[in-house]
């Protein structure tokens, strides 16, 4: 019995989404932070070299004859050589007058600080980094300020940055992938605990209502606790209703048995035909009602078990052997011989109780309709597939009944005077369906019914 459960999302998916989402967010932050840091460090490096270059030029500035003179050292440019062949620009000012270099590079600012100033600017589509320093020379005509600016394009820098960006991106993706894997693993193991509990509950037989005793994680303890309480309540209810049914059956069937036994005993003493007829009718009615009650209970049991089919190894041959032994006394009453032709062993997966009930119904039917002193053959063949057939030498089925007979409460037309509920073949049909078997009703060419169950 699998009922539909309303499902809203999956815990596992939710966990995976949250964890991978978090990992993605962290990866982006990591990427941005490392990139910024790398850019900063690279810039610092360039600035240091520019500063050194600029200082070495500035250091050579002297006052000669009241005029500023500079000796541009070769090393000031060579230290700026890069793999990317970055271009270098410079400008040297004395106060506001350009002494040498590119005028556009910088305008000597009025600020008198001696520190180095760094700035970025664009020139002809290139990014330039400019380091500007100033120095005051004291001469006979008063102090003169000298400004030196060295600029360098940033090709090498951006190449380095691009390379490190690629690495950082790889790192971020790697981090994301690994975190996602960990997230999926964590979610799976967490939900795996629940799945384990679910399978251990699902795998139980329909009769097993014992509490779950396997250790479970703390978070699941309340759920398992309520499950156990619920199952023990169900168990109690089932036991109580089973006891009730047993008690009710006992209370009803015992008086019925008394009436039947008395009627039977009285029949031995009574001679008048009308009295005998009514006593016989009484016995028949009792048989009818008790059989119907039995079949109804059996039918309920079969329906329940068929829905919760327990599959165990069942040897059809052994099961039929046992059944035939049990039913032989009933057969002997009419001098009917129960003959078995069994391929043994004939082991299949199924519910022994259900199969036994189905076969008992079939043999019961055969016993009811077979004439005295005839033979009923119970046969099992195991190759190519399992086939159980029960055939008698009775009147057989009417051709137009073969389709309808397995319907609920449907009884055959030639069954006047036979006690029956019309549930027998319904039970067989349900058991067959539960085991994926096919029930076939046929008449043998030489006469007699043959009922076949093909598994």
């Amino acid at each position: 019995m699998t009922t539909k459960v309303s499902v809203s999302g999956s815990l596992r998916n939710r966990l995976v989404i949250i964890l991978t989402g978090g990992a993605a967010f962290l990866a982006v932050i990591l990427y941005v932070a490392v990139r910024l840091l790398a850019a900063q460090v690279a810039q610092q490096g360039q600035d240091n070299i520019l500063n050194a270059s600029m200082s070495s030029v500035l250091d050579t500035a002297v006052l000669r004859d009241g005029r500023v003179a500079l000796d541009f050292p070769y090393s000031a440019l060579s230290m700026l050589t890069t793999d990317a062949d970055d271009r270098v620009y410079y400008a040297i000012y004395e106060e506001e007058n350009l002494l040498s270099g590119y005028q556009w590079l910088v305008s000597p600012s009025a600020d008198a600080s001696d520190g180095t100033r760094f700035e970025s600017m664009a020139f002809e589509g290139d990014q330039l980094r400019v380091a500007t320093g100033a120095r005051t020379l004291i001469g006979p005509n008063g102090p003169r300020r000298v400004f030196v600016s060295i600029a360098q394009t940033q090709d090498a820098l951006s190449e380095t940055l691009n390379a490190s960006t690629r690495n950082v991106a790889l790192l971020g993706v790697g981090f994301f992938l690994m975190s996602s894997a960990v997230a999926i693993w964590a979610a799976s193991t967490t939900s795996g605990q629940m799945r384990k509990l679910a399978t251990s509950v699902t795998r139980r037989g329909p009769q097993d209502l014992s509490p779950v005793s396997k250790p479970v994680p703390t978070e699941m303890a309340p759920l398992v606790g309520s499950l156990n309480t619920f199952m023990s309540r169900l168990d109690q209810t089932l036991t109580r209703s089973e006891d009730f049914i047993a008690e009710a059956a006992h209370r009803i069937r015992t008086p019925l048995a008394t009436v039947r036994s008395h009627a039977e005993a009285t029949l031995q003493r009574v001679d008048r035909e009308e009295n005998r007829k009514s006593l016989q009718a009484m016995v028949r009615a009792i048989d009818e009602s008790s059989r119907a009650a039995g079949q109804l209970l059996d039918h309920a049991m079969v329906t329940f078990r068929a829905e919760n089919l327990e599959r165990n190894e069942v040897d059809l041959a052994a099961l039929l052997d046992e059944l035939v032994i049990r039913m032989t006394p009933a057969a002997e009453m009419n001098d009917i011989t129960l003959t078995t032709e069994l391929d043994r062993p004939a082991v299949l997966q199924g519910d022994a109780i259900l199969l036994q009930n189905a076969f008992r119904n079939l043999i019961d039917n055969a016993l009811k309709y077979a004439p005295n002193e005839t033979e009923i053959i119970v046969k099992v063949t195991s190759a190519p597939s399992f086939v159980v057939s029960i055939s008698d030498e009775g009147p057989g089925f009417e051709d137009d009944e073969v389709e309808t007979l397995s319907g609920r409460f449907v009884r055959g037309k030639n069954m006047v005077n036979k006690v029956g509920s019309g549930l027998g073949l319904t039970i067989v049909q349900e058991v067959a369906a539960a085991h994926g078997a096919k029930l076939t009703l046929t008449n043998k060419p030489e006469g007699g019914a043959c009922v076949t169950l093909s598994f």
Partner: protein
Amino acid sequence: MKYLLVEDNLELAQAVASRIRLDGHTVDHAAKIADATAFVDTGDYDLILLDIMLPDGDGRNFLKQHRARKNLTPVIVLTARSQVSDRISLLDLGADDYLTKPFDHAELQARCRAVLRRNAGSAQSVATFGDVEFDAVSGLLHVSGRAINLRNRELRLLELLIASKGQVFSKQKLVDRLFSYDDDVSENAIEVYIGRLRKHLEGSKVRIVTLRGLGYRLEHDN
């Protein structure tokens, strides 16, 4: 044969017991497990008929004790429940057979016979009439050194006639005893079985006499 009937419903017990006596057997009746245990300890029974729901306990417990004490007397359980699983557990507990209430007396007899046959040797089932010996359990009739295997209805007919020696049985009564109530049998069917029995009894001193308008009676010449 000697039966022990364990059944708490007095009405039913009386009806069953009187019916068993009608077949010529002895029956003791116990209404409680305690009584049943006492009976089993003191008497030597061929068969126990056991109800499951008893005032002082579950008949299944009696069954368990009975088997635990290695008592081999066969037990047929009379149960009010008909669920298959219940029947299976009864057989697991050591019952030899079961019968669902209400039951056909003829079927009870048939099951008793089958159980006794399976536990061969324990029952005193041989009846002697004239120079004929008859074993109701195995269904063997010994006539002047010949052993004849009787069919079930022949066997029951002979059992009936021997159990109430000298009594006259009408065809009607014989039909009631030999056929179930949902068989639509004419009384002439009895003649077939009487005819067969007569054939089996040929050569012995035992005869089945027809009393016109009354029925049949078993007699033997001295």
